[in-house]
């Protein structure tokens, strides 16, 4: 049995908007084992990024708990939490905005060592340079780039620097928040391969957020589909992509354009994701679902295991 790195239970995050409550994430639970990747997919506004930030405690959760390597992350003291946080890192979508623009590439990568100098011991200049050089080799940034500034690099190279910085302290868990969606296809493939290689080398666990279903299928071992703050389906990747159970997952799969020789008809669903301020009663997907019954509009479906390892929240499978 592999070691469970992250155990999230009933995480909720409500934001206050005026006098109303916006349920960005509502009762999400998942486990991530060592060396595996949880892919999170969903439309914009489904709460994917909020979930990632809550798991890392970058924004405090309204309720729920995250157990990280056997410790209840949210209940630790501030200092302990800070120490534990070295084990978890994040790679952001926009590589340029997440790097310090006034610091050179090497200074950007060295920053984690400097921030954590108390715990790691102050490193000498030579040691620091060596570590930075090792990290740059690891992610494939040429050493000549050590003294250039982020704006001089291309998007793909910037993202590599972002990954190098995230890996500086040898984390066990890395959240990738749409790391490839702003990159070109050929560069995207390079970054995906890099992430996979790093996972094999260091037994990393990823939580990989993306809206591109093909990318998620490629990199994940498990996939969670989110809709309006809730996980509607969760299964191992192959199982989910071969037998999507929830109507929303099916629709998502159908909407992805496929490479074809003779052209295809598009069979998307009508309408857009409703406002999370005012989610529909009952099943949240009922306004756009083709299988919607009266029960769906009144009673919220329970999230349960339909087949071994395959969870979904839909009345169709009662």
């Amino acid at each position: 049995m592999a070691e469970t790195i992250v155990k999230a239970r009933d995480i909720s995050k409500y934001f206050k908007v005026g006098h109303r409550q916006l349920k960005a994430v509502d009762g999400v639970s998942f486990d991530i084992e060592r060396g595996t990747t949880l892919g999170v997919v969903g439309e914009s506004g489904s709460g994917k990024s909020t979930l990632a930030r809550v798991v890392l405690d970058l924004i405090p959760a309204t309720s729920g708990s995250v157990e990280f390597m056997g410790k209840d992350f949210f209940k630790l003291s501030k200092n302990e939490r800070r120490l534990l946080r070295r084990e978890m890192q994040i790679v952001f979508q926009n590589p340029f905005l997440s790097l310090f623009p006034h610091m050179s590439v090497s200074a950007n990568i060295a920053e984690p060592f400097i921030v954590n100098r108390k715990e790691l011991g102050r490193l000498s200049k030579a040691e620091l340079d060596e570590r930075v050089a090792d990290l740059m080799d690891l992610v494939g940034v040429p050493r000549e780039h050590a003294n250039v500034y982020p704006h001089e690099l291309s998007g793909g190279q910037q993202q590599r620097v972002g990954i190098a910085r995230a890996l500086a302290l040898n984390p066990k868990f890395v959240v990738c928040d749409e790391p490839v969606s702003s990159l070109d296809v050929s560069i995207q493939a390079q970054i995906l391969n890099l992430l996979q290689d790093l996972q094999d080398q260091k037994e990393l666990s990823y939580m990989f957020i993306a809206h591109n279903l093909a990318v998620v299928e490629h990199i994940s071992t498990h996939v969670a589909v989110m809709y309006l703050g809730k996980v509607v389906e969760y299964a191992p990747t192959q199982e989910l992509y071969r037998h999507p159970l929830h109507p929303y997952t099916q629709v998502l799969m159908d909407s992805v354009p496929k490479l074809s020789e003779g052209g295809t008809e598009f069979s998307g669903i009508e309408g857009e994701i409703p406002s999370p301020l005012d989610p529909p009663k009952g099943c949240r997907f009922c306004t756009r679902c083709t299988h919607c019954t009266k029960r769906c509009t009144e009673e919220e479906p329970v999230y349960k295991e339909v087949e071994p390892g395959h969870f979904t929240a839909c009345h169709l499978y009662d």
Partner: protein
Amino acid sequence: MAETILEVNDLHTWFGKKKYRFGKRKGEFKVYRFGKEKGQYKGGKVIRAVEGLSYTLNRGEALAIVGESGSGKSVGVSTVMGLTHSGPTTRVTGRVTFKGQDLLNTVSDPKEAGLFKKHAAIREKEFRAIRGDQISMIFQDPMSSLNPTMKIGRQIVEPLLWHKGKLRQEIQDEKKRLLNEGGKEALKAHRKDLRMRNFARARGLKLLEEVGIPSPETRFNNYPFEFSGGMRQRVMIAMALIGDPDLLIADEPTTALDVTVQAQILSIIQKMRKRKNTSIILITHDLAVASSFCDRVIVMYAGRVMEEGSMADFIRCPAHPYSQGLLNSTPILGDERARLEAIQGQPPDPRNLPSGCPFSARCTKCMELCTREAPPKTQLTPGHNVYCWLCAGEKVQEKEADING
């Protein structure tokens, strides 16, 4: 034989810096006199954004232009639209013919055209008659291409009111129809509807409904910020289609959208194309989107065409190493490869393109010849051309003999 809508022949768009003028003295527009072989103009490096782009587009046909960012696909169409034109920092050569009319009006002799500025003004005026009416464009980011201070209704009917002649004609036709059907009473009853503004408004409302915006009557008076991303893109489409264009240019219309909304938008464009037999140029970096409804494809890299051909040929047997790399590095739903075959390296700096084939630095099958000479066009099957030495056959030996001897 289908009618040819657009013919682009050997289009070049080059950019320079503003401080370097093309001519030596002020007022002398040497831009026309520069030979094509002289890539550099005084003192600065030229960015050759588009180099020798040629294609023809028939009525009702859909062409995809595929490439990475910086490959010149957007500049290519903005030149066709006249949004990029010759000036102090830009140089456009080549020929763009739209329904038999020369759009670039490149004058070979500057004296013939008189003053450059006057010439440009005439050109712009002529262009406005076409732009928005016969050629229209959908941009990638709908928020930055809609005017945030104008209600969307006004923005949608704007192209109609710009081309009043056509609108007047349509109103006259409608009047005749009413007169024939219901006599003078009918004409009197619809008097208000026949006013130019109201007529345009009715057209706009109908179109908004067609592109799938619920309750168009109320939405007509909303501002762009009140719409979601997908809805804004629908508004853009309505705006582009209101003049019944012969050619619709869609510049990455779905890149910023979710998959479900992307499918909706693409199906709207597809339906409109079928109904009105519009020709479409779709610019995208997503091969799957391109393959889903385009008949032909052009693959561009660093401003040059790498491969062109029918979509079916291209997907079945891509010939250029870059096209193959592009197809291999695209993750596809349901494929079980453990690793993607990425193209190594970075796209070249447009100011310092390598001599020879621009892809040579990243190509796994690069030969010595590739780094020296730009590859010639080779026809594989009718309509399927590739620019690569690998496919050039005996031309390689000829060239090598040429260089050695």
